[in-house]
């Protein structure tokens, strides 16, 4: 990888890490949600058979939910840069199209990784209070299963940040965040709902991302393969699209 990518990545990481919102949304929020939803779970009578908020299922749901916020941050970084004079000044530098894309992606990958580890660690701690012991290997595998969905969310962030302006882009991300939460089975039991909703969720990447982690946590590794592949296809498609759009947009900015 070129030095230029690393140098631009470092700048972007600094820019992200100096924004207090990054900590609130990317790190604090998932932990708070884990605690809140665990509390909600406590007040659900066992007869209800509601399992989505049990920590072994909740961890996957919140991990994917958290990654959707990484999308928002990617998008905000890119759209903010595009509206400012700094990025346009860089267009006159030796930094090239693909290097911008890598330079934006690497730092948010780091944030996604840190966030996922914190979410997992918090889940383990909550598990202790809930009398649930996470299988270490299952949890690690589960986290790795999230790489494609993370790439997909980052790709979406890059795409929205490239196509839309600073005002419109975050709003669009919010819509995707809500959509991902509902269709990702983070707040409801998709399996129990069945029907059209389940079919839609099975096609879209969000629920597959959640399932891939949940299956691993449950030790059902072979079950995780199909959801993993589905998210990987989405990730590749979205990311390539985002990279192409960014390079196109950059060329059209230089008119």
């Amino acid at each position: 990888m070129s030095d230029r990518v690393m140098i631009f990545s470092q700048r972007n990481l600094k820019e992200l890490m100096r924004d207090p919102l990054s900590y609130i949304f990317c790190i604090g929020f998932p932990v708070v949600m884990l605690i809140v939803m665990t509390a909600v779970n406590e007040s659900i009578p066992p007869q209800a058979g509601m399992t989505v908020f049990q920590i072994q299922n909740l961890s996957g749901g919140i991990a994917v939910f958290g990654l959707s916020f990484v999308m928002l941050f990617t998008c905000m970084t890119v759209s903010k840069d595009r509206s400012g004079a700094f990025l346009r000044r860089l267009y006159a530098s030796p930094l090239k199209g693909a290097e911008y894309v890598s330079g934006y992606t690497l730092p948010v990958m780091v944030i996604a990784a840190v966030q996922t580890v914190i979410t997992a660690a918090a889940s383990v701690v909550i598990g202790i209070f809930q009398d649930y012991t996470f299988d270490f290997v299952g949890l690690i595998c589960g986290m790795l299963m999230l790489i494609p969905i993370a790439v997909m969310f980052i790709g979406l962030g890059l795409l929205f940040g490239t196509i839309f302006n600073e005002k419109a882009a975050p709003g669009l991300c919010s819509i995707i965040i809500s959509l991902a939460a509902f269709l990702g089975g983070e707040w409801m039991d998709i399996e129990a709902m069945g029907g059209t909703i389940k079919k839609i969720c099975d096609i879209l990447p969000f629920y597959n991302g959640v399932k891939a982690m949940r299956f691993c946590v449950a030790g059902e590794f072979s079950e995780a393969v199909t959801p993993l592949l589905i998210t990987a296809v989405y990730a590749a498609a979205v990311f390539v699209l985002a990279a192409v759009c960014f390079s196109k947009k950059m060329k059209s900015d230089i008119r």
Partner: protein
Amino acid sequence: MEYAIEIKNLSKSFSSKKAVDDISCKIEKGQLFSMLGVNGAGKTTTIRLITGLSKPTGGDVLVYGKSVNSQMEEIKPLLNLSPQENAAAGALTVWENLVFMARLYGFSKADAEKRARKLVEDFSMESELNTKAKTLSGGWQRRLSIAMALVTDPKILFLDEPTLGLDVLARRELWTVIRSLKGKVTIVLTTHYMEEAEALSDRIAVMTKGKIRAEGTLDELLSATGAPNLEEAFIKIAEEDKNNV
């Protein structure tokens, strides 16, 4: 002789609007060349065309003999610019912005820091070293922006309206900084302030409506128009253009 910049029948149209209209001129190495003109004259567009931030719709520019149309990647390392708007990374400090820029243009970490230290000294920025760019005052932001351009050791430095929006003291300080650069690097400066062009330039090109109407040293412009000062000369040159249309 090879010129720093050779503009050859350069044009740029935005749909039907001719922002730059068939201009030609040569800029010698080491000179401070000013483009003087009112808002909308085409100064920024000309700079964007030379620095690769825009593509000509006609003509060419040779930078150290290399064409902006076909050899922009080779030209890029030779140039840097301080754009009309303040353009530093807001969350980075003055020091970090300088090192970032130098490294992006290929300097090693040690060399980048060495160059940044030199610029901090030359621009007397010691007091603001650890201030984040977005919290700097207008004068300091402009100074940083120019330092960020110089830290990459360009052969040609473009300053687009460097003192726009600055108070009179900040402007004078920046003039001193710019004067200190004369001879060390070729400078292309745009301005709509007569006194700025008068105070700093080796040569001045008067631009109106996308065209260069006159070009020469201050004395040459004055004697050609018979005007007592640049402002009068500018007005005469601009009026002449009106009479011709």
